[in-house]
């Protein structure tokens, strides 16, 4: 069964004056998918998301949402999209529940229906007890959850969440993850931006790795890790002689030097690194599972989180 394409970008480009923030990218998002835009700060994730919800005009290329062009059908598109922006723009002049009710009014949702939906969302996001609170009484995590709740008030087919857990403590992150997972179960299509590897790996069916406005790789998280970083990664403190020895021992390996650390990637099953560790008894070496961050490092020679 061919799945329905909800979002389609062809040579999508965004320039601010002469600076190219998004550079001829192509991608598709299918109904029911969770797609992650993964990349460092300044990669162009927010800019791309803003073009999808018709906030930023497209400079070049084509972008359609549910078959409609973003530059001609912004009102129709915005009706079916929910947006949880990166920065907090909750309305500080209103209480928690009033934030949802007023936002519902922007979508022409009748008052009784708006209140019903608001109560359901507050319950789902565990904010019921805070319904009468002022916005500045909420913790960062609660604000994030309220922003996502607000994005769902129009029962969108597509949810855009820009860095849903940046600045949250581990517990707060897991609550948000659980909630996004249950939205996915309900069939909502989710686009999520993040610079956290674990977040992309935990939530996304597919990730687009973005750097300098370009998509440098895309695919399922586990496949990408396997393809680019293998099963395991070997980490060693930087040392001239050890580096030379490693290159001789493993001529087929891909070796990256980052700061004072050597990282060795290899496309071979387990066991190779164990042999190396035994061969250098005096040297402190660590073997760990490869992850998406290794993929990024290998593709760009840079660390992702900076």
């Amino acid at each position, binding site marked *: 069964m061919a799945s329905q394409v909800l979002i389609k970008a062809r040579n999508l480009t965004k320039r*601010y004056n002469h600076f190219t923030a998004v550079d001829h990218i192509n991608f598709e998002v299918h109904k029911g998918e969770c797609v992650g835009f993964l990349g460092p700060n300044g990669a162009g994730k927010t800019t791309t998301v803003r073009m999808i*919800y018709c*906030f*930023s*005009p497209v400079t070049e290329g084509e972008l359609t949402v549910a078959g409609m062009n973003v530059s001609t059908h*912004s*009102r129709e598109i*915005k*009706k079916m999209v929910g*947006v949880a*922006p990166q*920065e*907090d*723009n*909750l*309305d*500080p*002049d*209103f209480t928690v529940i*009033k934030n949802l009710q*007023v*936002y519902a*009014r*922007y*979508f*022409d949702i009748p008052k009784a229906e708006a209140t019903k939906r608001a109560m359901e969302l507050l319950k789902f996001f565990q904010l019921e007890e805070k319904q009468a609170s002022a916005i500045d009484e909420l913790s960062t995590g609660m604000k994030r959850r309220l922003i996502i709740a607000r994005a769902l008030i*129009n029962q969108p087919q597509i949810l855009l969440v820009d860095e849903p857990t940046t600045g949250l403590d581990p517990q707060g992150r897991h609550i948000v993850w659980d909630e996004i997972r249950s939205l996915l179960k309900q069939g909502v299509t989710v686009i999520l931006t993040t610079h956290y590897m674990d977040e992309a790996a935990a939530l996304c069916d597919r990730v687009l790795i973005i750097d300098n406005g370009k998509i440098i790789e895309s695919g399922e998280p586990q496949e990408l890790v396997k393809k680019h970083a293998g099963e395991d990664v070997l980490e060693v403190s930087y040392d001239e002689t050890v580096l030379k020895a490693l290159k001789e021992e493993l001529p087929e390996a891909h070796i990256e030097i980052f700061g004072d650390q050597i990282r060795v990637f290899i496309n071979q099953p387990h066991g190779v690194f164990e042999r190396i560790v035994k061969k250098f008894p005096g040297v402190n070496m660590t073997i760990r599972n490869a992850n998406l961050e290794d993929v990024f490092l290998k593709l760009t020679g840079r660390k992702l989180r900076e």
Partner: protein
Amino acid sequence: MIRSSASGLPKLTRHVWTVWHRNFDVFMKTWHVNFLPSLIEPILYLLAFGFGLGTFVTEIEGISYIQWIAPGLVAITIMYGAFFECTYGSFVRMYFQKTFDAIIATPINVEEVIAGELLWGATRATFNAAIVLAVVAAFGLISSPLFLVMLPVAFFGGLLFAALGMCFTALAPNIDFFNYPTFLLITPMFLISNTFIPLATFPSQLQTIALAVLPLTHVADLSRMLVVGKVETLGGLSPEWVLVLAAVWMAIVTAVLFILAIYLMKRRLIK
């Protein structure tokens, strides 16, 4: 409202009133705080200028000084109410609260957000003008049954000052910037626009400037006509023509500033 067009005019629908409604809800939450200054201020002005200064200036154009300045106070209230709502108020919502960004992510477009803000600024001006009119009435200073027409005039005059303020908001790099238009434009207008001092007493060049470029002059003239039934005859124009001139001048300038404010804000917000 003005409907979508290919001519570059703003695309506006009834969503404008949804934006207006947001500000109205906030206002109603704290209406008593908004209400008191609008009530106290005109009382203080009438006491200080009317009774204080009025003992020296006994009569202008055949009416008492206090009755002469009362319509001026209404006009000033309209200017302040709308201008400050759409400068400081709108800037806080746009810049610090990111309220406009939040609304633009819904089916409401940026033109409608700004138009809603402008209509709200006009509404605030009307609300404040109504309070001042009540004070003026309580002082027994209303002598024309037409004074109720002052409410729609307050709305349209308010729209003019709201749009003027919004143009500055679109250009303001930070909130302190509003000191410039306040001291270079609003305060001079407060003083020379036929509000506290008859325009006829100023040098003729100043009179020309006040009539040609200062909106408050026209609002004050209309107000004096509607509240106390008194029209100044300026530069040889008959009273009817002074009023027609004021109404036409305001209509044109309001339309121009309204479109300009939306254009400038769009340029600022859409990146």
